[in-house]
């Protein structure tokens, strides 16, 4: 798409349009020297974190395309992925086959949850985000019901080492040692101290290609149309509700895969908390990369991962160096994550209103001139 017709590059508008990424570059520029990490360490950490998180964040792009905003309900997919991993662990299927099987198990669960989430969001048009957000908590309750109470009692779990001592319910931490980084290590390249998980990167690249390709499909086009104007799309015969549900289902399934990739890198599953923050961090990272509620690109994802996690890595040390208390840095990065989401949401809503009043003002001006 040709967006910028006038080639004159305006620095001011560049900063205005990219205020969030620019702000993060500044934060990082201040914090990195203060924190005093060696460059090699930073580079290796960033590469690890791109491999860990990028897939999850990519899962957010599709609902944004369909005009449903930031999918706070992506956590649902993460839970589906976790359930897949729990089963695979119990069945003692190791390594790559285990990961593939976990993904396969997660698909039907993700589809079901995505369908539910999409249906409910269709009932709450215009408040998709808050609905998705509450949906997290609701499904989290059901997840706990299943994992904490049903597994081992109703749902058969063979090996008691992943069960709580009381005989049912999954342990608070499930060790994924047999799957640990098996994707990352499949084709790993080492440059000095830096390990590059080539296979994971290939998966992420494939995912990017998928998204690029998907935008060119009929379904992708329909989603963009629905995202911009539901009524117009409906009038031309596009099944609006169905398209919206499909976008959420796709996002949920991809988030499930993303969670499995994330967890195989970490190497253990904290059964009841692993998913609780994941949505927030992914959304924050995407926004840091310069995305907004109604517009996000693959570039935003990677820029976001790098900047956000750079800040995440250096903040505790930098905080400690400045204030003498390492907790300050910890809290600071949490604050920044929430803050950036708040700012992005507020800017989006304010922009919507400003666009309206601007149109009015223009009209008035034209009449004024005519009235003279």
């Amino acid at each position: 798409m040709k967006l910028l017709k006038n080639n004159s590059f305006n620095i001011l508008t560049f900063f205005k349009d990219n205020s969030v990424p620019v702000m993060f570059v500044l934060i990082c520029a201040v914090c990195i020297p203060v924190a005093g990490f060696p460059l090699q360490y930073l580079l290796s950490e960033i590469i690890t974190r791109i491999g860990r998180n990028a897939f999850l964040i990519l899962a957010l792009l599709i609902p944004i395309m369909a005009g449903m905003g930031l999918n706070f309900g992506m956590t649902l997919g993460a839970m589906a992925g976790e359930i897949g991993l729990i089963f695979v662990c119990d069945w003692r299927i190791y390594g790559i086959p285990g990961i593939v099987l976990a993904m396969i198990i997660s698909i039907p669960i993700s589809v079901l949850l995505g369908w539910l989430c999409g249906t409910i969001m269709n009932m709450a048009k215009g408040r998709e985000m808050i609905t998705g957000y509450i949906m997290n908590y609701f499904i989290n309750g059901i997840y706990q019901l299943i994992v904490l109470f049903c597994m081992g009692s109703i749902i058969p779990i063979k090996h008691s080492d992943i069960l709580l001592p009381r005989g049912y319910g999954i342990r608070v931490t499930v060790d994924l040692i047999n799957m640990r980084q098996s994707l990352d290590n499949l084709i790993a390249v080492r440059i000095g101290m830096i390990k590059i998980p080539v296979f994971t990167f290939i998966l992420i690249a494939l995912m990017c290609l998928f998204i690029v390709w998907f935008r060119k499909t009929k379904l992708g086009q329909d989603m963009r149309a629905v995202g911009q104007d539901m009524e117009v799309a409906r009038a031309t015969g596009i099944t609006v509700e169905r398209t919206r549900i499909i976008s959420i289902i796709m996002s949920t399934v991809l988030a499930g895969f993303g969670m499995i990739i994330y967890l195989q890198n970490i190497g253990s599953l904290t059964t009841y908390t692993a998913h609780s923050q994941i949505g927030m961090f992914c959304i924050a990272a995407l926004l840091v990369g310069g995305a907004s509620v109604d517009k996000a690109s693959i570039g935003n994802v990677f820029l976001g991962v790098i900047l956000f996690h750079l800040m995440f890595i250096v903040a505790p040390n930098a905080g400690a160096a400045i204030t003498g208390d390492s907790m300050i840095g910890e809290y600071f990065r949490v604050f920044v994550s929430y803050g950036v989401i708040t700012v992005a949401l507020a800017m989006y809503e304010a922009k919507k209103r400003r666009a309206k009043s601007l149109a009015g003002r223009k009209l008035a001006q034209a009449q004024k001139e005519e009235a003279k």
Partner: protein
Amino acid sequence: MGETLISKSTLQKAVQSFGLPRLIIAGFLLSLFITAPFVGSNFFTQLSNTINRFGWNAVLVLAMVPMVHSGCGLNFGLPLGIISGLLGATLSIEMGFTGFASFVMAVVFCTPFALVLGLGYGWLLNKIKGGEMMIATYVGFSSVSFMCMMWLLLPYKSPTMIWGYAGKGLRTTISLEGFYSGVLSNFLAIRTPHMLIPTGAILFFALLAFGMWAFLHTKTGTAMTAVGSNATFARAAGINVDKIRILSVGMSTWLGAVGILVYQQGFGWMQLYMAPFNMALPAVSAILIGGATVNKASIINVVLGTFLFQGIVTMTPTVINNLMMVITGQGLDISEVIRVIASNGMILYALTRKSEVTR
């Protein structure tokens, strides 16, 4: 499009307006009360617990009312009010007030914070009409995480509040023994072997609730309701909609501040850092369970909702646990999960209702 309900029996209408989820929750609680004696938990102890927790929480739920009335939606930004309350409380203790005076001074100190923060918060919400609830949630979160840093950095000195070993930074939980722990609940409390009625706390809530009820009957209060019901109508009738909305946000924030103080005096501890994080959702679901919608709420909704919600919170652990013991022979603490599902299910239900002004 508004549809006129013409031929529907009054019963059907009543069920419809009350909402199925609410019926389920009320029925669930009722069945808990009935089952309680059979599984060996004392009915009166349960009731007493419920009433006590009602006393702690009711003001926080009341804090939802003004913003719902002015059309700002459910106050997911309640943590902002709570932070004002915490600032007031810590200042009061820092200055060395004790006993009842510490409570009064906490209320006094929290007021300017609540008003200033409420003003800013209201200004922001006016900029983003239509997206209030999502942004309110994140305003709450950001302010909580910001204050996490502040609790560490602010120069508090009182030895009861700061970490002993570091000599600075506030503790995560601070005992209120000797300060205002129980100052309301124990006032005129009625004690029987199985029951303890916290008369003072309930009276305090009644006072605030009456104030709210009275306010909604004044000229300004009427305008507030009209703004929430149809902002364009209100504007056409000469009301300054933005001003009314800011007022309502200020009131909600102040009530949130006082609400956390009331909660603390009942609980006996002050919780700092990430604790305010999870206080908004229970209050939101409580008022919804009580029959409020996204833009209509009354004092009755507050009372009923808090009672039902706290009933579930207190009853499910013991009753369900005992029930499971009877059935399966082992304890099973499923209550937390049930509470999470029920309360968030209620919020979801309310969000999917078409409660916007019918056009």
